[in-house]
């Protein structure tokens, strides 16, 4: 009898539990799960050349076509270049600022606030600031580079990606600084003191104590930074719209163009899956390594 009652009670608890997660389940379902599944189906159907014609099921043909197309390869290469241009520089600059600010000096709080302030800046604001700086007529950067009146850095295929990368690095530096500062806080002071007594100068302490102790943070920043860079969109849309001559047409932007310019959601879906797989791999690597990482607890 009591078993019966407890079973009923468990059912009631379960019901309440489902009721409580229902709202978020609905939201996730509509905005994540359904589009996710729908995307796979889009990838298997070829979009007709003229709107109004029925979509045709083509199996993996379209996937093969897109993945082997030179257009896809080019945008993947640009995306990877963009990651390489932004992530390492962002980490190094964040680390540099964090090391500088990791001193108990009066007024250091002001610097910490300034260094981390770009977190509170939106991509749009950052892009507009740099758009102005890069402007061929009025931009300070163009002026400094002695290119006033010339082809703007954003219009030159050779410099456009670098310019977008600079904007991105600036935008990310706040987050990088915060992550690195948190990492530095986690290094026990007595390790530095031991190293100092052991005869290590500042540089040796940095290479042999700070960096190794920071390696989990560095790794985390690299992976998260890469994921963010793979997904970059706003600054490209505002600064270059993928141009000039596709020089900044990264994967996400080309997906956007496929859908909203070319109206080809089949091709876009395949690229989206490719991007999903890349980000998934990065995420798995991060989780695996974080799990396996030896704990430095003493």
């Amino acid at each position, binding site marked *: 009898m009591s078993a019966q009652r407890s079973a009923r009670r468990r059912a009631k608890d379960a019901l309440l539990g489902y009721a409580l997660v229902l709202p978020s389940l609905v939201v996730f379902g509509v905005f994540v799960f359904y589009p996710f599944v729908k995307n796979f189906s889009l990838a298997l159907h070829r979009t007709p050349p003229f709107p109004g014609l029925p979509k045709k099921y083509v199996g993996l043909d379209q996937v093969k076509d897109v993945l082997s197309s030179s257009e896809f390869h080019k945008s993947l290469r640009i995306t990877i270049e963009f990651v390489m241009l932004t992530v390492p520089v962002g980490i190094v600059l964040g680390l540099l600022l964090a090391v500088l600010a990791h001193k108990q000096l009066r007024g250091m709080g002001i610097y910490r606030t300034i260094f981390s302030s770009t977190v509170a800046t939106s991509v749009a604001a950052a892009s507009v600031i740099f758009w102005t700086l890069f402007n061929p007529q009025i931009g300070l950067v163009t002026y400094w580079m002695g290119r006033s009146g010339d082809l703007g850095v954003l219009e030159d295929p050779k410099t456009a990606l670098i310019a977008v990368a600079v904007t991105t690095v600036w935008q990310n530096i706040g987050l990088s600084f915060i992550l690195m500062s948190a990492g530095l806080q986690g290094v*026990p002071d*007595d*390790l530095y*003191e*031991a*190293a*100092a*007594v*052991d*005869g*290590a*100068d500042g540089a*040796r302490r940095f290479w*042999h*104590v700070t960096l*190794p*102790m920071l*390696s989990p943070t560095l790794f985390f920043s690299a992976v998260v930074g890469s994921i963010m860079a793979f997904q970059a969109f706003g600054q490209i849309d505002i600064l270059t719209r993928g141009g000039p001559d596709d020089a900044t047409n990264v994967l996400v932007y080309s997906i956007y163009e496929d859908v909203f310019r070319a109206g080809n959601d089949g091709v876009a879906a395949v690229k989206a899956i490719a991007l999903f797989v890349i980000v998934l791999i990065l995420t798995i690597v991060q989780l695996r390594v974080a799990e396996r990482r*030896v*704990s*430095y*607890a*003493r």
Partner: protein
Amino acid sequence: MSGITLSGVTKRFGDTIAVDDVSLTVDDHELLVLLGPSGCGKSTLLRMIAGLEEMTAGEIRIGDRVVNDVEPKDRDLAMVFQSYALYPHMTVRANIEFPLRSRKVPKDQRALQVAEAAEMLDLTDYLDRKPSQLSGGQRQRVALARAVVRRPAAFLMDEPLSNLDAKLRAATRIELVELQRRLEATIVYVTHDQVEAMTMGHRVAILDRGVLQQLGSPQEVYDRPANLFVARFIGTPPMNTVRGRLETAGGTPVVRIGADGVELPGAAAAAAAADGLLEIVLGVRPEHVEIVTDGTPGALTATVEVVEHLGHEQHVVGRLGDGQLVTVRQGSHLPAPPAKSSVRLAVRVEHAHCFDPETGARLG
């Protein structure tokens, strides 16, 4: 010549004075213990010697060199931290080798010295492990090995045994003393454990609230405490300190405690008289008080509060007529008086100490 000389060393953190005008000399090949209660400034003093903390005032010399403005790395010292501060990402070998690499010792020489230090501290089998794979005692030995691998002018140790359990601590204490003897090392050793201080120190420097209270051999500090603080701090159970009025009874100076009077040691009486004191604090170690039969002259009357049995001895805590407590330490073969009974306590005056009740300073 690698002694350490401190003169007028002072450290202020804002309003708190952590170390107040400390002057002392650590002799070459000496193991000097800095002893004191928590927060008395021991670590701060040690860290100033290491150069990890700046001095507010004073001068520190290592050998003949004034090191006030010398970087820690150039002071030629080795330090063992309470937390060990081992580099967690390095193997035991790399940890021990680190000070040598920092000082650009050639490779073969390094290997030789690491092997020797590892041998000395019984770490040869663990050289390829990471610190996280070692027990507390092994980590502690790695910290020591990292210190002894180089022959520095002096070793600084900040409570290096406090993270070990009692048994391991006692064993390591003996090993440390042997190590010191073998290396003829100069060591400044910080502890708040008086057993460590008494058993290991050639001399003991006792600090309270940043002020050096007394510097002397363990026996001196025990036998002739310079003031009330030292008297109460050294020894377990602590010294009995009872306050009484100074009187003269038939030409001999006596301390009047309640209805009873205890005869004073001559030197102390003279010093007290010279200072014009009316009251005095009489200090007697528990082993220098005896329970005696009624009628013994010069004894104090007390009521037994508790008797603590420790197996090899017992501590009888009695309350004097005026409320002050006196502990008697006696062998466990002696009969323990029942609680609330009245006993007579005789003080062995030749072992008594007298202190100024206001300044706490020793008299005589």
